[in-house]
């Protein structure tokens, strides 16, 4: 969440750290490295918000199991051959060095630009959810009030957080107050 917004998670330490050095030396990107073998990795990854997440093919199945669907398009799987999941971009490493670097360069410029340009505007429905969150309603209440399922309410909540870059309800409440969606007396 803090600092670099590119991360690498790999079971193969050497490959992971090698990629990290490559990204830093050639592209000036300071990526965080997470070892797939460490117990804290998944907790820390879940708490962080990366624009790009590199992952070696051995770790991909577990990552896909633990990763929210909306985040899948940010995954780049590296290794030999193509990954099995269609959402995931592939970076083949069983190719000549110049081909690998070219592919990496292409992928970084396309992907980082695309993710940086993501629109941050909330939809009217998301604003409804935000107002209710900011006045202390829990997901079940929000779902009942807006006649939507709890699952949909949770998904709105996730999208709001991703768009605004604010994770906690307290932070979202401040955002809603600053933007006049709620006042100290309640919903406007």
């Amino acid at each position, binding site marked *: *969440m803090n600092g670099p917004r590119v991360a690498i998670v790999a079971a193969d330490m050497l490959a992971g750290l090698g990629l990290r050095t490559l990204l830093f030396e050639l592209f000036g990107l300071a990526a965080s490295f997470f070892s797939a073998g460490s117990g804290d990795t998944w907790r820390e990854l879940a*708490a962080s918000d990366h624009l790009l997440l590199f992952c070696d093919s051995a770790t991909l199945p577990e990552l896909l199991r633990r990763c929210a669907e909306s985040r899948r398009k940010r995954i780049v799987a590296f290794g030999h051959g193509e990954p099995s999941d269609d959402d995931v971009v592939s970076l083949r490493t069983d190719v000549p060095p110049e081909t690998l670097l070219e592919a990496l360069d292409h992928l970084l410029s396309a992907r980082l630009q695309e993710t940086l340009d993501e629109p941050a505007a909330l939809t009217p429905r998301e604003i409804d959810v935000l107002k209710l969150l900011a006045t202390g309603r829990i997901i079940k209440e929000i779902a009942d009030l807006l006649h939507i399922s709890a699952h949909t309410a949770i998904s709105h909540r996730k999208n709001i957080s991703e768009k605004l870059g604010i994770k906690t309800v307290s*932070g979202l409440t*401040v955002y809603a107050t*600053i933007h006049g969606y709620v006042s100290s007396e309640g919903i406007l």
Partner: protein
Amino acid sequence: MSYKRFTLRMKLSDILHTNYFLLPIVHRFDIRYGIGDLSVAEICRERSIDQDFFIEILNIYHDEHYFPEAELLKADVRLIVGYLRKTHAYYVDYLLPSIDSLIHALVESGHAHNSTLGPVASLFDEFSREFRKHIDGEEQQVFPYALSVADAYRGQADGTRPPTGWDGGIRCFEDEHLLMDEKLFDLKNLLIKYIGEPFDVHVCNSIIFEVDRLERDARDHARIEDRILFTAVEQMEKALRGAARA
């Protein structure tokens, strides 16, 4: 991005010049300014500081990807608790009041014409209250419990009774470190992305720097607590339980 580790033979002054954010860490071991050219080993010997613990604490703070769990688990629980208490004191006595007065200065710099600053100030108030409560809980419950387990463990041969609060074990106290982290990030992000004019930009910069420092320090603190203190106590709990069954 450096993988170079600090060693006992290095001059402490050189280490501090590598990373000035290590200064408050060093102060937690009662080492202040005026250290001359002494090496880490010499300073530790002079002041009866556990040198292995000291150097690892500097290394893990300096490189967030470095965490020698096995090495740190060798440290005495009293040493770990002592260090964690000093970091609490640093937050409560210095860092939180310092950020608090900066935030007041920021709100004042808006001359009551800026309605976006008040909500941010209340977010920090809320965080500060929760953080102090969390620290208080650790000081009042977690640390005394950890120390009593360590006492029982050391006195095991004499048949010392296990401490009270035994059933749940130390993991009962595991808590909301992650949420604390997120609130601090939100605070920085709200300032950077969403506050309106007018306000004093220099004060705002200082707030971001200090909040970032707190976030980083607290993350390090939580790593030591969750992965070292709790793990060490858990291992002793298991050994004591095994001995009780035998």
